[in-house]
Structures are given as structure tokens and as C-alpha cells.
């Protein structure tokens, strides 16, 4: 690139930045976004394959958390079947690749759509209930799905697990975490963008109205049941896409990792990050994903430490890690 074009680019970037800050997005946030973007781009060139595997896994968790954020954080419906939809996504895209050799973008879409469709059907039944009954009904569905994964041998490989053949697009095959990383990053960013759009839209407002008061939402013309089912279906779609993202860099899946613990792990991430905030869901996924990876070395303490973290957060930072930090730093800044 010649000096002249570089100067032009930087000038247009500067005016873009000025436009953003004029629209009320503070420069600090733009700087943070730029840093994050740079880090995401540079990462694969400076770290080992293992670190990239962790990065991929964290990004899958980010998408899982965004999905759970929609149904629990925005719509206030305590659904506990996220691991089931995640599993449907993994098996769908794995099988589409294994059996039919589908290109991965197509199997990703299929994974999201099938998980979403199952979500709509289950939601239509389960969302007649609320609170603890909804939690129990969706929990039961999650357990039933794990049983299906474990016993439908011909399709899922049952207790032997399923070998996932490398994701492909034409002649290109994803054979390593490093090759999968760009795909996973782009998908995570797309899903994040979609979440922000939904949250700011009329649909997002309808979700929050349902969370805050169902009768008032109804009086405002929000079709409450349809809003709940839409939210649940979307959250299942997210989990399905997360599953297909996992399938791009993973070679194997076993039903053991698709049980209630996984749902609880994602729930913990969303709660620890801060219920009802997108930044909380993303941050919770990253922070808690790292913690859970570190604790993998000491499986016997893992559960105890999860429990402790949850209790501490409920007691001292019920609105989540990020609201807590914001409150503290805000107070410090004000003196």
C-alpha cells in the first residue's frame, strides 16, 4: 500500500470515529472494540494450537451464552435445556458432514434451523408453564435428549460417541484448530451482531416487556405466548449454531458432555456475567470458560469451586461481574 492510500484510509477512519463519537458512542468503547478486534486478528499468529483450541471453545460458549441470554436474560423464561439444543447442533452438522459431505456453511445453517425448529415445538408445549414448572419441563426434555443421544446408536454412535469428519468447503478441509479459528470467530461475531440487533429492536422490547410484566405486555398488544416461543426458538437456534461451530474444530462428540452439567455451566456463565446484559453474557462466557478450563486439571474440586463462585456472586454481586466492576470503578472515578 502506498503512503498516499494509507493516509486516505486513516483519514476516512478518523472521520468514521468522529461520526461514532458524535452519535454518543464514547471513544473509550471504540478503543476497546478496536483492541479486541486487533487481538482476535493477531491471536492465531502468536499462540500455540492448544491456546487456539481454548479460544475456539470460548467462542462456542459465547454463542451458547448469547442464546441463553435471549430466553432467560431478555425474556425472563427459565429454560434449562440448552445442552440438548447444543447437542442437536453438533450431531446435525457432524452427520451432514459425515454422511452427505455437505459444505460446512450449509451444515451450520441446517444445525441452527433443526435445533431452532425443535426449540419451537418444545417451547410451544413447555412455555404453557412458568417459573419452576418451566424449569422442570425443560430439564426433563434435556435429560430425554441426552438419553436419545446415548441410545440412538445407528445415528449418534450411542455410548461409543461419534467421530466427526473434518468440516469441508469444496476442496478446503478444516484439519486443525488454527484453520477452524477464522470460521469460529466470524460466526461468533455474526451471532453477537444478531443479538445486539434483536435486543435493540421491537422484538427485543417485546421480550423485555414479557419479562417485566406479562399482563402489561398483553395490554400493549404483545402476543405473550408467541414472544416466548420466538425467544425460546431463537435461543435453540443459537445453541444449534454453537454446536455446529464446535463441530468445525472437534473430531469427536460423546453424549456425556451434553448433559445437565453443560446447561448449568452456561447458566452460571450468564448469571455470573450479569443477567440481562449482552456484555455480561459475553464476559461471563470468557471469564468462566477460562476458569472451567483451568479447573479441568482438578476435576474433584471443579464442582465445589463452581458452587462457591455461584454463591459468592449471588451474595455480593447479584447483578453480575460486569455491573459490579462498573459500579466499583464508577464510584472510584467519582471519588
Amino acid at each position: 500500500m502506498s503512503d498516499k492510500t494509507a493516509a486516505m484510509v486513516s483519514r476516512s477512519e478518523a472521520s468514521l470515529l468522529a461520526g461514532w463519537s458524535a452519535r454518543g458512542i464514547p471513544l473509550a468503547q471504540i478503543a476497546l472494540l478496536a483492541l479486541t478486534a486487533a487481538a482476535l486478528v493477531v491471536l492465531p499468529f502468536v499462540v500455540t494450537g492448544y491456546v487456539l483450541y481454548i479460544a475456539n471453545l470460548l467462542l462456542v460458549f459465547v454463542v451458547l451464552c448469547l442464546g441463553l441470554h435471549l430466553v432467560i436474560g431478555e425474556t425472563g423464561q427459565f429454560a434449562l435445556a440448552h445442552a440438548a439444543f447444543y447437542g442437536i447442533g453438533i450431531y446435525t452438522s457432524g452427520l451432514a458432514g459425515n454422511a452427505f459431505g455437505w459444505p460446512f456453511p450449509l451444515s451450520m445453517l441446517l444445525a441452527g434451523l433443526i435445533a431452532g425448529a425443535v426449540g419451537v415445538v418444545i417451547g410451544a408445549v413447555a412455555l404453557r408453564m412458568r417459573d419452576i414448572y418451566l424449569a422442570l419441563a425443560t430439564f426433563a426434555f434435556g435429560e430425554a435428549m441426552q438419553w436419545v443421544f446415548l441410545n440412538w446408536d445407528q445415528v449418534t454412535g450411542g455410548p461409543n460417541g461419534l467421530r466427526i469428519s473434518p468440516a469441508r468447503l469444496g476442496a478446503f478441509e478444516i484439519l486443525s484448530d488454527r484453520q477452524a479459528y477464522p470460521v469460529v470467530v466470524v460466526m461468533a461475531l455474526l451471532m453477537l451482531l444478531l443479538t445486539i440487533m434483536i435486543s435493540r429492536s421491537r422484538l427485543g422490547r417485546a421480550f423485555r416487556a414479557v419479562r417485566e410484566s406479562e399482563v402489561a405486555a398483553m395490554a400493549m398488544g404483545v402476543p405473550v405466548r408467541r414472544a416466548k416461543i420466538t425467544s425460546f426458538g431463537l435461543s435453540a437456534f443459537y445453541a444449534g449454531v454453537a454446536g455446529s461451530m464446535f463441530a468445525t474444530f472437534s473430531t469427536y462428540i460423546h453424549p456425556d458432555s451434553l448433559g445437565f452439567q453443560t446447561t448449568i455451566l452456561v447458566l452460571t456463565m450468564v448469571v455470573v456475567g450479569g443477567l440481562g446484559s449482552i456484555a455480561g453474557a459475553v464476559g461471563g462466557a470468557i471469564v468462566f470458560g477460562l476458569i472451567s478450563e483451568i479447573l479441568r486439571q482438578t476435576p474433584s474440586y471443579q464442582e465445589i469451586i463452581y458452587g462457591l463462585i455461584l454463591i459468592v456472586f449471588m451474595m455480593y454481586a447479584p447483578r453480575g461481574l460486569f455491573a459490579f466492576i462498573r459500579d466499583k470503578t464508577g464510584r472510584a472515578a467519582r471519588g
Partner: protein
Amino acid sequence: MADHLLQVQDLTVKFGGLTAVNRFDIAVQRGTIHALIGPNGAGKSTTFNCISRFYQPTTGTILLDGVDVTNMPASNMARLGVARTFQNLELFGELTVFENVMIGAHVHAGQTWRDALSARPAEVVEHVEHLLERTGLSAYRHARARNLDFGHQKLLELARALAIRPRLLLLDEPAAGLRNREIAALDALLTDLCRREGITILLVEHVMQLVMAISDRVTVLNFGTKIAEGTPEDVRNDPAVIEAYLGQEMAHA
């Protein structure tokens, strides 16, 4: 012939063995303020909840502008131009004042998926700003609804209902718990909404000061049955009403 926006015919509501409302009729004329009053437990709120479609009547017919809405789901009423407030506030507590009113404009924010995903149609935002201005809530737009004081919460419910752009505004005890100064402001606002914008208002109310000042017509319920109907003056002087209801009030007045 009178031009009725709302007609309720032969409405009966039974909860188990209890008859809350018994063969009740009411016709609300377009562009007027109509009050529904009566002692506690007379069936006012039950009637009100039937009209806004939150309760299903045992028998009877509800006509909105001549169209039978007796079996309409509650969430369809906003689209038909019927807005309501709640006796015990039902705000979206964790959301901001602005967002509360934006949700009121839900049915005007578009129908298609593209509309559903567009953040804030300019025309809707403009109307919301206008309503906040009008109810004196502009300064609080970023406050969470649950942090407002009671009087402002009542006004916010009204602003949110107005965002529906209603033909018929159903107000369940709008003056309850307000101070005298606030009631006077409400009085002026409701009169203005009706006279200048032609919004038809049906209100359930205990605060006689408001009812007598603004109502064109008053219907009195007692034990689920209509006992009187007429202008505030007629009702005030009706012996049955004085005995059943106003008697207690007047004696103390």
C-alpha cells in the same frame, strides 16, 4: 341515535357460585368521558377486565364500534385501539421510562420481520417524546420505572397507554393515591385528551372529586347490578345511589 363506541350487553360474570356482575349493560358514547362507580366489590373492575379482555364473561356481548370482540384475545385489543391502565400499577419496572412508552407503541412499530428488527422508527420515537413531554416525564426518560415516585408512575402508565394511540382509553382508578394537586393536573389532562383529541374514556374511579368534575355520564354499579345512570348531576341526586353508595360519602363530606 347516539353514536356508541363501546356497547356491553347483558354481561354476566360468575366466579364459581359468586355472581360478580349480573346482566349488566353499558353504552359509552364516542368522544365522551364515562365513569363507572360503585362501592367496593360492586363488580367495576371485573366489568373493566372483561372489556379489556383479561376476563372472559360467563355470558354477554361486548361490541367495539359495532364489532363483536367478546372472544378477542387481550393482546389484540391494543391493535383495535383499546388501551388500559392498571389499578395496581403494572409498569415494566426494570426498564427506563422511555422504553416503557416505546413498548406502548409496540403495535405501531411495524409488522414485518424487517420492522421487527429495526431499532427505533423515527416517527414512533417522535410520538413517544411528545407523550413524555405532555405527561411531564421528559426529565425522567432515562430513569428506571420502579424508581419513580407513585404519582409519576401513574402518569407513566397513562403515557404508555396513550402510545397505543387509543380510540378507547380504559382507566382503572387513575386518581387513587394521588395528591390533590396531582388530581387537578390529571383532571385537566383527561379533559384535554377527550375534548381536543376525541379519545373516548371509560374510567373506574373512587375519587368523586375527579368523577364529578370530568364525566359526561356516570354509571353506578352495586352488587354487580346497575342501579343508576345519567349525568353526574342526575346520579348525585338519585335516591338509590345516595342510599347505596354516595350516602356514605356525602355523610362524611
